[in-house]
């Protein structure tokens, strides 16, 4: 029986057929990533062409169906033809998220389109359509159905009798069907863009992005049961069916409500994320770290030393006093740079022996010892310039654990005036010197040092022979001073102490004989607590230091400081250590003699 194409049943049949096509078009348009080979551009695709509906002349007839003009979707167009066969079979569209395997070739980004048509009547339509590329081949790729669309027309029994009814009712029927189909497809169009898969679709289509996932779709006419776990994860959504006289058009949806974890991990960021309020690295602002590093951190094996280091003074002092001798700026400069970049770490150069950290006083009074808060509490040791034999100097010169600066180059000159403040630093040996200014300390220490330097023009034999002469005055180190520097009086006392040696060493103090100095030194050596092994190591390290005047001047104070501190803190000193120290002193003596001979 020939079917009148203008008859109502034919119209309805056509509406239903086009409904399938349109729904597939809507779904695939928003789920099928664009293939680059098809000259699609992101902008072209993401935005519709002219919004004006007047450009209908460029539209194909199919575009006007249901008053909804869509963008070209080759996948849909290619698939639609297959569905013109029968409207009685459901159309199942599976949207599959494919995770690429590790051996995925990043050179190719076009997804694979697979069309499988598994009909019960496979004999009639026994084909499987695949696209050209196999980038998303099954090898190693994981697939997950994230959406399943089922479009079907459920015909009613006895439909033919109804459709052959009155013409008026039939026209109303087709008209109503068409209008309701329009509404349903409008809803479908909006819904596909609200689902999570749409975001993935847009991500894939975004330009310049290589992703490890993609979307493929499968269109079939049989509903393959989903895995139980997949089905449990999915949510259902069913559009209101469009009732017709002969049946009803239905669109149902099963979708994964959340698929962000699959894409967020595998996708590379499109653009870098800027963190403008990045706090910063130590390199960016290294000075920040200085105050926060505690002393104990520096010398874990020893008792915590609270003494700050001389170069911390230098870092905080913009310019040294003009009276500072020439060597000092060099030293301060070097130490400044050192302290700036991690002074919390022990110095590693030969000029900055590690052991010097251990000669410091306890950290209990360290903060108090700081003359001013500007001084960065560098945990690094005091100027770790260690000169062999300088410990002797420290011993001799130590009155109140004051650092001694021995400008050896000046020993041959006239006695250094007390006004000279040759010390570029004044590492506090005591814990109780919070307020003494650097200049003040330098001057006082320098005076002590110069005097000590004079005293130390020793002969070798003098060193070896304990004269037994006691040196009174500032160079006599009290046991109390050595043992418990923390009990030192406050700043005022400190300055007073410094002043005391000054007074003692003043012009009124006659120059002690070298023999007496040696004897005193020996006495101190006997009384002194044993040096630690690391300190002795430092001595060995510093031995090969260059006998330059600047070096000596820089090193001596450090040595003095180290020695005195060592005596203050260390209690065990072996004979070998003492002998080594004595040898160092002898070297110093030779040095001094040489220099005095030159000048």
């Amino acid at each position: 029986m020939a079917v009148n194409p203008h008859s109502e049943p034919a119209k309805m049949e056509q509406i239903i057929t086009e409904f399938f096509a349109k729904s597939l078009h809507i779904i695939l348009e928003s789920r099928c990533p664009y293939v680059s080979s098809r000259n699609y551009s992101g902008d072209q695709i993401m935005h519709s062409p002219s919004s004006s509906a007047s450009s209908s002349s460029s539209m194909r007839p199919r575009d006007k169906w249901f008053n909804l003009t869509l963008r070209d979707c080759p996948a849909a167009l290619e698939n639609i033809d297959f569905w013109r066969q029968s409207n009685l079979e459901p159309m199942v569209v599976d949207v599959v998220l494919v995770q690429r395997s590790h051996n995925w070739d990043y050179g190719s980004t076009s997804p694979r389109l697979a069309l499988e048509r598994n009909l019960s009547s496979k004999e009639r339509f026994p084909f499987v359509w695949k696209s050209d590329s196999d980038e998303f081949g099954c090898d190693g790729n994981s697939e997950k159905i994230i959406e399943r669309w089922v479009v079907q027309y459920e015909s009613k029994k006895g439909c033919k009798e109804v459709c052959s009814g009155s013409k008026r009712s039939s026209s109303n029927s087709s008209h109503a069907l068409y209008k309701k189909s329009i509404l349903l497809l409008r809803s479908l169009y909006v819904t596909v863009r609200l689902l999570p898969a749409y975001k993935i679709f847009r991500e894939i289509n975004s330009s310049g992005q290589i992703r490890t996932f993609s979307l493929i779709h499968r269109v079939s006419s049989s509903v393959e049961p989903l895995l139980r776990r997949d089905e449990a994860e999915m949510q259902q959504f069913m559009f209101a069916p469009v009732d017709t006289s002969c049946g009803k058009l239905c669109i149902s949806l099963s979708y994964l409500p959340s698929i962000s974890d699959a894409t967020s991990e595998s996708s590379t960021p499109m653009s870098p994320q800027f963190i403008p309020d990045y706090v910063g690295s130590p390199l960016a602002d290294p000075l920040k770290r200085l105050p926060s590093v505690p002393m104990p951190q520096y010398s874990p094996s020893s008792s915590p030393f609270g003494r700050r280091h001389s170069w911390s003074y230098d870092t905080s002092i913009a310019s040294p006093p003009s009276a500072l001798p020439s060597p000092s700026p060099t030293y301060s400069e070097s130490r400044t740079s050192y302290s700036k970049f991690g002074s919390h770490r022990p110095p590693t150069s030969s000029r900055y022996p590690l052991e010097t950290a251990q000669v410091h006083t306890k950290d209990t009074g360290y903060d108090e010892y700081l003359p001013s808060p500007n001084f960065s509490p560098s945990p690094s040791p005091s100027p770790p310039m260690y000169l062999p034999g300088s410990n002797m100097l420290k011993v001799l010169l130590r009155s109140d654990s004051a650092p001694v600066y021995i400008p050896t180059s000046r020993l041959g000159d006239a006695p250094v005036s007390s006004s000279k403040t040759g010390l570029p630093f004044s590492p506090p040996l005591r814990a109780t010197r919070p307020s003494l200014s650097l200049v003040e300390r330098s001057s006082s220490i320098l005076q002590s040092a110069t005097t000590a330097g004079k005293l130390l023009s020793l002969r070798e034999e003098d060193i070896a022979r304990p004269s037994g002469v006691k040196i009174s005055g500032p160079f006599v180190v009290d046991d109390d001073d050595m043992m418990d520097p923390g009990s030192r009086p406050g700043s005022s006392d400190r300055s007073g102490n410094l002043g005391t040696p000054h007074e003692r060493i003043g012009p009124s103090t006659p120059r002690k004989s070298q023999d007496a100095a040696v004897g005193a030194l020996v006495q101190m050596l006997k009384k002194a607590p044993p040096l630690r092994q690391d300190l002795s190591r430092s001595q060995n390290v510093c031995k090969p230091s260059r006998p330059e005047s600047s070096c000596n001047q820089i090193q001596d104070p450090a040595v003095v400081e180290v020695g005195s501190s060592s005596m203050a803190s260390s209690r065990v000193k072996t004979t070998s250590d003492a002998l080594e120290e004595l040898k160092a002193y002898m070297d110093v003596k030779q040095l001094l003699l040489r220099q005095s001979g030159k000048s």
Partner: protein
Amino acid sequence: MNGEVCQLKELDVEYFEIREVLRCILHTIFFHRALGLVRPKDIDLELFEITYHTHHCRLALRKIAENSYMYVQCGDAELEKKVDEKIDQFIDKVEKHPNKKNQICLSFFEVKNKQQTWFTNKVEHLYWEHWYINLNVAQHPKAHSGKSHHSKLVVDPGESASEERNARRATLESSLHEVLFQIIKFVNEKKDHIPPIPSMEGVSFPYEIIISSSSDSAFGMDMFKRMLQTGHPTMLS
């Protein structure tokens, strides 16, 4: 009142979000009611990008697709213009009457033949559908013009503020999602009340947008006017 009524879920928005939220909702409704030939236009909701632009401290360049929300327009320029005008009016009203619950009512009606009644000479509008969009605009200092959707509002760059903002944005996105699905469900479930399509161009049905607020004295008046226009059901033959 005749016609199907859909009360959309109330949304909590801020000043700078009003425009985009209203555009999204209104155009979604219109897309379902512009049953003439349309070429849909996908519009990225720039709402959530605004927060990034004003987030000058924690600015993160993100993919549009990842964060954007989008809605569909009919592609009718005239409709877009009318919608924007109404949104401007709404924003002005909100600014004048802050801290009020504001409502936009989109109504579709049929133009009936002029009926001579004793209280009106107007052409009768037979409303067959009302959409109530309820917005709760948060109290916020007016730091920008409401007409510009790319707000220059300087946001406190504090960390807690940004987290709060992100949470609020996520809540709004979720609520907006619910509202859109509410529209879809309503459109799907109720189709029989839609009258024949008078026009195949643009929005097929005549409509009107009324802005009202809970404390607006004219709110009730608008309702009364509508009742008069539509007429009491018992008055219609």
